[in-house]
């Protein structure tokens, strides 16, 4: 119980830090803390595979992608612009709407019949709920269709990213070609002088 509330405090605090941070890099750090805490929550809910996947995919892949894009966008002459917020303009109505929705939801939860997640069973054994063996068996037998849909989603994402990147490369190519031509001309001139 204490562990849950400690993790909840970390999750909420890092989530708030994510959205109020001045620079995107700080947001990435806050999000990293958030994902790590969430992985621990998954482990307490005996979702071992998801806890590991949370670290590998989110912290390992997605956040590194964010860091790469931040580095790419801030590698120009100007430093990365923070970007203006809409905060001054719509801060009060947004806060009222969001807090009203949140209050309604928590009220509904408080009114709902309460059930408790059972205490955690010993982990790592086959046949125990949430163990990796159990999860893998379900993934490749009963839940095979969702697994295939996952593959399809990743395929579509790869094709989409290649399409977007290809358009950018077509724009860039003439400039790169011109630079190569200029370098070759300069080299030829140097040869002639020497």
């Amino acid at each position, binding site marked *: 119980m204490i562990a849950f509330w400690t993790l909840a405090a970390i999750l909420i605090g890092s989530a708030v830090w994510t*959205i109020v941070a001045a620079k995107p890099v700080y947001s990435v750090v806050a999000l990293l803390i958030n994902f790590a805490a969430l992985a621990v929550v998954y482990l307490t809910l005996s979702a071992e595979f998801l806890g590991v996947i949370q670290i590998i995919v989110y912290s390992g892949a997605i956040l590194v992608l964010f860091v790469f894009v931040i580095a790419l*966008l801030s590698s120009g002459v100007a430093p990365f612009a923070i970007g203006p917020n809409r905060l001054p303009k719509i801060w009060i109505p*947004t806060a009222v709407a969001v807090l009203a929705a949140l209050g309604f939801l928590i009220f509904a939860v408080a009114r709902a019949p309460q059930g408790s*997640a059972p205490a955690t069973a010993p982990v790592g054994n086959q046949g125990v709920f949430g163990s990796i063996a159990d999860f893998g068996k379900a993934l490749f037998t009963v*839940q095979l269709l969702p697994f295939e849909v996952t593959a399809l989603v990743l395929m579509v994402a790869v094709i989409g990213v290649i399409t977007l990147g290809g358009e950018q490369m077509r724009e860039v190519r003439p400039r790169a070609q011109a630079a190569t031509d200029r370098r070759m001309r300069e080299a030829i001139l140097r040869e002639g002088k020497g």
Partner: protein
Amino acid sequence: MVVPIGDYVALAAVIFFIGVFGVIVRRNPLIMLMSIELMLNAGNLLLVAFARLWLQNAGQIFAFIVITVAAAEAAIGLAIIVTTFRPERFVDVDDVRSLHG
């Protein structure tokens, strides 16, 4: 020691609305994408908590799908950001007018 399911729902709701607030208020596309990740994670937390409550694997497998979708969405979203915003320009989604019709 046992945490009631309502606490998980409340925690997920708080994180989700922090993400909503981030998407509405922040204008930096990177931080907006991160807020979307926060919202997806809140949904995942609920899926895993209810999977634990009912002792059903399906919730965890759907959370796995959501993680995949989040990875795909991050890849495509970041590719769009990189192709849309030039490095030397101010990064602000309100500057993008090409889809206004």
